[in-house]
């Protein structure tokens, strides 16, 4: 597929392919958005570069997807916005099913803190160097990751405690 990049995004892609030649895996467009897939090892460097050099100062979201493939099952997506240039770009990294782990970008954007906690809560992707790597929605002692595809929609019976209905025993 040929890319239809405007000037800013063309600069971004050129800059990335020059600086991260080996780690830039794929660039594609879909539904009017531009996606860049990188190797998970360089995520912090790429993000740093995009923020410093291309003014992507706003991290709109970090989320995961479960591709449910045998290799590189999880996908981590950063949704970056440049207010100045009014551009949006998605940076993706694929992570393995066993022990999915990636470095946190909280050092670059503070707002990544809760996004990454949510991604951990839902998919079990761990973020190293995160200041507060806990679950955010589910109870702390919950043992599953609900957005993984094998997790049943209605949950696992008995996995979360209900309050005791006899007041004195709680």
């Amino acid at each position, binding site marked *: 597929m040929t890319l239809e990049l405007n000037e800013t995004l063309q600069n971004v892609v050129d800059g990335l392919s020059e600086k991260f030649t080996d780690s830039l895996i794929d660039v594609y467009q879909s539904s009017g958005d531009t996606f860049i897939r990188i190797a998970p090892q360089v995520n912090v460097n790429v993000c740093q570069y995009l923020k410093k050099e291309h003014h992507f100062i706003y991290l709109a979201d970090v989320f995961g997807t479960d591709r449910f493939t045998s290799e590189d099952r999880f996908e981590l997506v950063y949704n970056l916005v440049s207010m100045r240039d009014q551009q949006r770009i998605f940076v993706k990294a694929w992570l393995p099913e066993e022990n999915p782990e990636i470095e946190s970008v909280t050092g670059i954007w503070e707002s990544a803190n809760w996004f990454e906690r949510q991604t951990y809560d839902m998919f079990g992707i761990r973020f190293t160097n995160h200041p507060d790597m806990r679950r955010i929605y589910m109870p702390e002692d919950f043992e599953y990751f609900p957005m993984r595809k094998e997790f049943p929609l*209605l*949950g696992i019976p008995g996995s979360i405690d*209900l309050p005791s209905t006899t007041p004195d025993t709680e």
Partner: protein
Amino acid sequence: MGLESALGDGYMTSKVDSLVNWARSNAAWPMPMGLACCAIEMMAFAGPKYDASRFGSEVMRFSPRQSDVMIVAGWVNYKMAHAIRRIWDQMPDPKWCIAMGACASTGGMHRCYGVVQGCDNFLPVDAYVSGCPPRPDALLHALMKIQDKIRTEHSVMLDT
């Protein structure tokens, strides 16, 4: 004042039970447990148009110690369930509970891992209100049902 003139001279006989039930049923102060969209309809129920004060329930108490009827309005997730149960346990007896809307009654459309499928899993519910959200009239109906229930309460004495 008004009562004396209506009665004139003389006296009236009644049972303590009927008096207490009459008083209780007309002063069922709600404990609003507004958790989601249904809470908006609950506010309308208390507001001037539907006017819960006609039934003696105008005083929405945000303190469990002062309330008699808990209105669970909205979907209950597992984390919130503990807080609700704790508030319920803090309400003085006798107390009643209304599960307002599809979500509070059965989980409704939130058929998923995080939402308790009906708050009767951990609360003794007296009246269920169907609807998503129920109209304020429906909530008034539930309140009237609870009043009926209070009025036909067997006795204030414990049968031990």
